[in-house]
C-alpha cells in the first residue's frame, strides 16, 4: 500500500468551533420567551434568502390568542455563505458572534421591547 494512503493531510487533529449560527441564537431566544409570558406572547424566527445571496432572519413576537397576531421586533441579515458580519435592520454592523450576542441582549432588554411585550400580554389577557 502506498504510504500516501496512510498519512493525514488535515491541518488539525480535531476541528472545533464555538461559533453558532445567528439563526440558532435567535431561535433559542425565541423559544425562551413563551415560558416568561405564560405563553401569552411567544416568539418565532422567519428566515428567507434573496436572489442577491443574503439570508434574512426576522424575529417576531406572536400572540396566539389574538389570531396569531405577529409583531416583527427586528431583522438581521448576512451573506448565505458567511455568518458574520451580520447586519441589523437599523444598519448596525455586527462583526462577530460576540458583537451579535451583545447587540441582541441590548435589543431584547430594551425599554421598547419590554413595553411591547407588556402591551401584547395585556391585550392577550383582555
Amino acid at each position, binding site marked *: 500500500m502506498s504510504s500516501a494512503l496512510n498519512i493525514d493531510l488535515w491541518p488539525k487533529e480535531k476541528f472545533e468551533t464555538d461559533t453558532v449560527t445567528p439563526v440558532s441564537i435567535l431561535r433559542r431566544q425565541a423559544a425562551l420567551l413563551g415560558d416568561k409570558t405564560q405563553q401569552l406572547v411567544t416568539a418565532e424566527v422567519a428566515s428567507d434568502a434573496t436572489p442577491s445571496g443574503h439570508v434574512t432572519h426576522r424575529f417576531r413576537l406572536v400572540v396566539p390568542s389574538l389570531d396569531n*397576531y405577529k409583531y*416583527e421586533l427586528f431583522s438581521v441579515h448576512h451573506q448565505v455563505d458567511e455568518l458574520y458580519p451580520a447586519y441589523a435592520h437599523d*444598519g448596525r454592523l455586527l462583526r462577530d458572534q460576540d458583537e451579535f450576542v451583545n447587540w441582541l441582549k441590548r435589543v431584547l432588554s430594551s425599554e421598547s421591547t419590554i413595553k411591547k411585550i407588556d402591551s401584547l400580554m395585556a391585550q392577550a389577557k383582555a
Partner: protein
Amino acid sequence: MPRFLFWNLNNKPLPQLVKKVARSNDVDILVLAECDISIGQLLTELNTETPDFQFAPGQCERIRVFTRFHSAFLAPIFESDRISMRRLRLPLRDELLIVMVHLPSKMHSSAESQRTECSLLARAVLEQEATVGHKRTIVIGDFNTNPYEHGFVATDGLHAVMSKSVAQRGKRRVSGRDFELFYNPMWSYFGDVGNRPSGTYYYEKAEHVNYFWHIFDQVLLRPGLLSGFSDEVRILTMAGDTPLLDRNGRPDAENASDHLPILFSLDF
C-alpha cells in the same frame, strides 16, 4: 363606496386640518404617518360634529389609523416598526388586507437599503396573504420611494406596474419563477397636466440630477380589486377651505405638511 385617505403629517400639530380633510372628503379610513397629535386630541377634533370616528389601535407607532367603521373590523394581524397590516372585515363585504407603511427616508437610507425594504415588505405581504387566504390587498403609505425605482418595479420588490392591463395578468414569469403583480395608479400623477400638483412631495437641491417633485405617498392594489377601484387617486391640495400648497404651488410645510394627502375609493 368606502373612502381611504393617507397623509404624512410631518409631525406637525394639525388636528383641525386633519379633521377638515377627513370630513370634507367623507373619509371612512384615515391613515396617518408621522402623527404627533395625541389620540385623544385627534378623536375630539374629528368627532366635534358627529361622534363616528374611532381609533383603531395597533403596535406600529409610526402609523395611526382612525375609522368610521367599528375599530374591531380593522384588526391588526402583522406589524413592525414601519408596517401595520390589518384585515378589514366589514359585514356583507369581502375581506380586505390593508397594508399601511412608512418606509425609511432617503435622508437616512441608501438606494440599496430602500430597495431591500421594499423587498422585505413584498415578502411580508405575500406571507400574510397566505395566512389570510386571499389576495384582496391594498398597500398604502409613504414609501419614500418613487414608482419608478427598483424597489417598486423589480420582481423581488413590490412589482408594481403602471398599466392595469399588465397588472391584470396577475403574475409574471421571469427565469422560471412566477411573481405576483400590483397595480400602481400613481404613475399617472407625474407632471403638471391638468390642475393638479406634480407629486405629493417637493424637494429641491442644487444637484445635477433633481426631480423636484416626488410621489412617495402611494396606493397599490392587487389586480383582483381593480373592478371596484374608482380609477382615480386624488392628491389633495385643500383641507376643506384651507390650502395645503404655498404660493409657489408646493406643499405648505410651514402651515400644513411637507406631504400632500392622497384619497381614493374602493368597492369590494
